[in-house]
């Protein structure tokens, strides 16, 4: 990762789209060095005019000069430089990026997915919830507890992959398997997904926005935005968007259930009106 000379004023002058470009450049600075403006535009899904405006706001004449500066910075980079960058890293910016991940995730939730999900929740089919261990298991716990607390029975948490395989090989296809994966490619999770597919068990998955194996196996797939991180092999990717998503699913289901009940009650009492 390289450092660009950015101060608060420059960052404030950037629009949300331009900030996203900046985020992309920060995360992929090595690749950006070899990109044309069109490639970067395609990668970030913005127009090349946006990229150009972004470069100009940073004080460069155009994309070529921006890349030149990026390359020059890259060469200068020393351990000290990255410490300086970390220090400049402002708490507000961090919070904003948390917020944009959650907002992005929130925008990805569609009514279609929700109504599909609610059909499974409404039927009294058993729900199997895979808890792969580590931090992701906390998410499975959260989902499980919230489902219980809004009165959905028949939710079973699977904590061992051997037991999970055993259960999935023998269950009725009128069940639901919930898989949550922070990378979307975790081996044991993919494996369970494949077994469920083989036995025609529908899968609800929560995976990142990238193209990933778990999502490809799923019947209903919810996606979220996050940045993958690890500390020397132990990952600590933010789970906040997933907590947010699970909460949104539960909230909507509760509302759906309550309004459904109201409607049937109304239907019984005031047939003539409807």
């Amino acid at each position: 990762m390289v450092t660009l000379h950015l101060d608060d004023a420059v960052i404030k002058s950037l629009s949300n789209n331009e900030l996203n470009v900046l985020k992309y450049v920060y995360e992929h600075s090595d690749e950006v060095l070899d990109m044309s403006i069109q490639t970067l535009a395609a990668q970030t899904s913005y127009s090349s005019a946006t990229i150009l405006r972004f470069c100009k706001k940073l004080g460069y004449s155009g994309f070529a000069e921006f890349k030149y500066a990026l390359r020059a910075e890259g060469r200068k980079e020393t351990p000290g430089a990255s410490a300086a960058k970390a220090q400049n890293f402002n708490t507000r910016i961090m919070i904003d990026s948390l917020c944009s991940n959650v907002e992005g995730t929130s925008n990805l939730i569609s009514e279609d997915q929700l109504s599909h999900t609610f059909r499974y929740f409404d039927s009294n089919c058993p729900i199997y919830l895979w808890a792969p261990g580590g931090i992701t298991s906390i998410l499975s716990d959260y989902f499980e507890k919230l489902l219980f607390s809004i009165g959905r029975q028949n939710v079973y948490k699977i904590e061992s992959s051997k037991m999970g395989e055993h259960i999935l090989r023998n269950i009725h296809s009128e069940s639901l398997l919930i898989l949550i994966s922070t990378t979307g490619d975790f081996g044991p999770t993919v494996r369970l997904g494949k077994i469920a597919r083989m036995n025609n068990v529908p899968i609800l998955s929560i995976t990142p926005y990238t193209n990933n194996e778990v999502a490809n196996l799923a019947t209903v797939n919810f996606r979220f935005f996050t940045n993958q991180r690890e500390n020397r092999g132990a990952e600590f990717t933010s789970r906040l968007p997933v907590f947010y998503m699970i909460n949104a699913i539960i909230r909507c289901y509760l509302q759906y259930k309550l309004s459904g009940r109201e409607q049937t009650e109304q239907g019984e009492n005031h047939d003539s009106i409807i």
Partner: protein
Amino acid sequence: MIPLFEKAHQLHLTDTEEEILKYFESNLPSSVYTNLSDLSASLYTSNATIVRFCQKLGLKGYNEFKYQVRKELKQLHPQNFRTDDLVHHSLALFKDNLDQIDEKELEEIAGLLTSDRPIYIYGSNLSSLAAKYLQTVLNTLDYPCILVEWRRLLNGLVHEITSDAVLFIITAHGDARRYLSVFRKAKARGTITILLTCEKDSPLIPYSTFALCTNDRNEEYRHVDINPRLGIFTIVQILIELAARIKQNSQDDGDTFDSLS
């Protein structure tokens, strides 16, 4: 007229607040899409004044105010009512929660969590998940800490722990009185306590060294607690981000985090 605006007119408003109200009424529906900073700039007032105005109406903040106006507008024109409204409401609450946090205080707490002191993180029921999340990630970042999920254990613990320990207690609920003795004891012993709750008037606040309050609502569905604690998870995530930053700084250069703690 929108019921919320009717309600506002009945309240005792300051001149500035009248102006805010007038602005919203005369610029509908575009005004419900303005962000807080733009609005305060165009009205020559501060963000805090606008938030106070929203709170006068019994709402948590500006985002919920916008959400409410939008909702009531939709009820007046029901043909374009959408069910994903609820998702927007959660997002509005999430943003309001972020708007009200105190960054300096959180930085200070992150400094404590990453110091050499013994750290105990407590949470029970659904709050235990937030506690576990914080504990697991801090351990991942090489800041060892201990998870306590049993209330009795916490009661006993507070008599035993060393006075340089930090006690991080997550409790969403209003029945905070059950923790009162823990906080009293901790205060008497000089232990640092950090309280994370969503009860604004929690009786524990005066006894805690740091008190963080989120905008989650304690709700029940058929007598079961369904408060999702998303605000609490958000605060926990921010503390994690700050701890990760401290970790990164200390890896690059041993003493860069002195300024933070």
